């Protein structure tokens, strides 16, 4: 079995601090969600995820963006970069970096759910012929992609893996398992094209989304339920999963 080899100390250097496990559910109606997937080279496969997770073969980089017009913190957009992985038997998305355009939302998503959200600009646009995502921090574009040629899908056709955020929690450094629910009303598949990507800005220099696989854009109501599980990042899930 292949295992992640990223050093937890390095990954945890600038991680958010989770205040507790009582937050949620948070309902986010009327959201637009863009997900784009790219293969990464084998050199990134083990390097990006911690030893408690198994990377996929091939390594898969997932770019996931939410544009939420309504939330307890006001409108916000959040962009995440994730490495697809397995925690034990389960598909999971390990978040390496995130950017949010609303300071209050970023703080809450970090403190309540462990998202490593930093302040920045996140622009997600959807049209009938394409969708675009552009993320910037400090005036520099750190991610830009477009999805072309929309094809209708059924809501059930789109899969989102459960999120794992590495955070300092009351139990120590843990992978915080966030299980967003998506009530999808409209879904389309897109052909992704990555225009710009700065790996260091997304938490890991090994990230290299070189080969486009697929993209989708959906309209949905998102719900962030309370955190139920955390996992130790340094041991496998069978031993390291903890119910909260």
């Amino acid at each position, binding site marked *: *079995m*292949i295992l992640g080899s990223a050093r937890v100390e390095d990954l945890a250097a600038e991680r958010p601090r989770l205040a507790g496990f009582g937050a949620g559910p948070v309902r986010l109606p009327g959201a637009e969600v863009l997900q784009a*997937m790219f*293969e990464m080279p084998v050199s990134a496969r083990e390097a990006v995820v911690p030893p408690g997770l*198994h990377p*996929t*073969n*091939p390594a*898969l980089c997932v770019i996931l963006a939410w544009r939420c017009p309504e939330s307890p913190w006001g409108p916000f957009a959040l962009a995440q970069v994730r490495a*697809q992985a*397995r925690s*034990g*038997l*389960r*598909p999971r998305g390990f978040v390496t970096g995130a950017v949010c355009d609303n300071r209050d939302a970023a703080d809450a998503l970090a403190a309540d759910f462990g998202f490593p959200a930093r302040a920045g600009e996140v622009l997600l646009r959807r049209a009938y012929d394409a969708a675009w995502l552009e993320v910037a921090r400090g005036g520099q574009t750190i991610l830009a992609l477009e999805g072309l040629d929309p094809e209708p*899908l*059924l809501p*059930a*056709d*789109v*899969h989102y*893996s459960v999120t794992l955020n590495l955070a300092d929690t009351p139990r120590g450094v843990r992978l915080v398992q966030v299980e967003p629910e998506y009530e999808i009303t409209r*879904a389309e*598949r897109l052909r992704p094209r990555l225009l710009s990507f700065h790996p260091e800005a997304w938490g890991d220099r090994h990230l290299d989304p070189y080969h486009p*696989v*697929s993209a*989708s854009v959906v309209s949905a109501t998102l719900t962030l339920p309370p955190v139920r599980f955390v996992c130790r990042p340094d041991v496998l899930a069978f031993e390291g999963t903890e119910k909260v």
Partner: protein
Amino acid sequence: MKFGIFFEMSVPRPFTDGIEKRVFDHALAQARLADQLGFDWVWAVEHHFLEEYSHCSAPELVLTAVAMQTERIRVGHGAVVCVPEMNHPIRVAERAATLDILSNGRLELGTARSSTWTELGGFGANPDDTKKAWDEYVRALPQLFAHGHTRWQGRAFRMPERNVLPKPIQQPHPPLWVTVTSPGTELDAADRGIGCLGVAAASYGEQERRTREYHRRIQSCNPVSSAVNDQVTTLNFLYCHEDAKEAARTGMRMVGMFGLANSHLLWTREAFPTRAYQSLANLAPTGTGGGNPADPFGVPDGICVGDPKRITEAIRRWEAIGVDGINFILNGMETIPQAEVLASLRLFAREVLPHFEKDAPARAASGVRGGGPA
């Protein structure tokens, strides 16, 4: 009831020198023994790029070796991936007919479309198109096997009039199967009059529902050929030991490791949203090593891990729900020493097989209606 052994050729890390050869050598030895012991089938999968889980990318070569080293056991493609980027249909027919000749009419021809992004993406195949291509292949293959010249004008391939050679020994052709992973594929099999080759461990209830519907539906099928194959098989694990506790300890370690490796595959649906792939994985909970509080050793219902009595009871139940055959993974992820695998096979043959010997006369022949040796 028929019994087969099923090769994934899983090769656990570390990939040391000679480990792949050892796995293949072990498999061939298992096939030789299974032939001597009275098993009915040896199946070999076709997978590509699936590190550890399956290094069996050229099953036709594996099965040729098996055929050369055995006398009566049937050799099964479990299965040929019917996607043009991987296997051109003319080559599928040519290789199958050749293997049927070399094995003296012992070939079973399974068809499939691949279920992982690792494989489809590696060959540049569009997941949207694989089911369409598979359907065209199963219509085309009987025609390509037929005597004389033929032509084909389809979506997956086109061929002006040619005589595809050689021709198989079994007439009109080797029995056709389709691997069943996604729910509903058993209905596709029934509608086309081809066998249902279960490759995903299913619970009793799920298998019973699928088997009943398959047998109901195939009665009114529109077959792709004059030879209807109306058999249903299921996939299982086998570890048989006189000591039930030891059987559970060793056998369930294999089941768990194989389930873990299976769950790590990058399923098409996970990477590529499409209506064509609805399943995210292909092992039911019984196949992923989940415990069973009703069993003293936690072995899930239906899994053929245990002492001969327990395994016999499990097979009786599979038989009662209408399954025609069970194919066994003997050593997923090479967790069991080869000597113990062979001992398990021998014990199964000695203590379990005789309970199902009433079917022996039927075993020699395939379950195909309207076909047989030329």
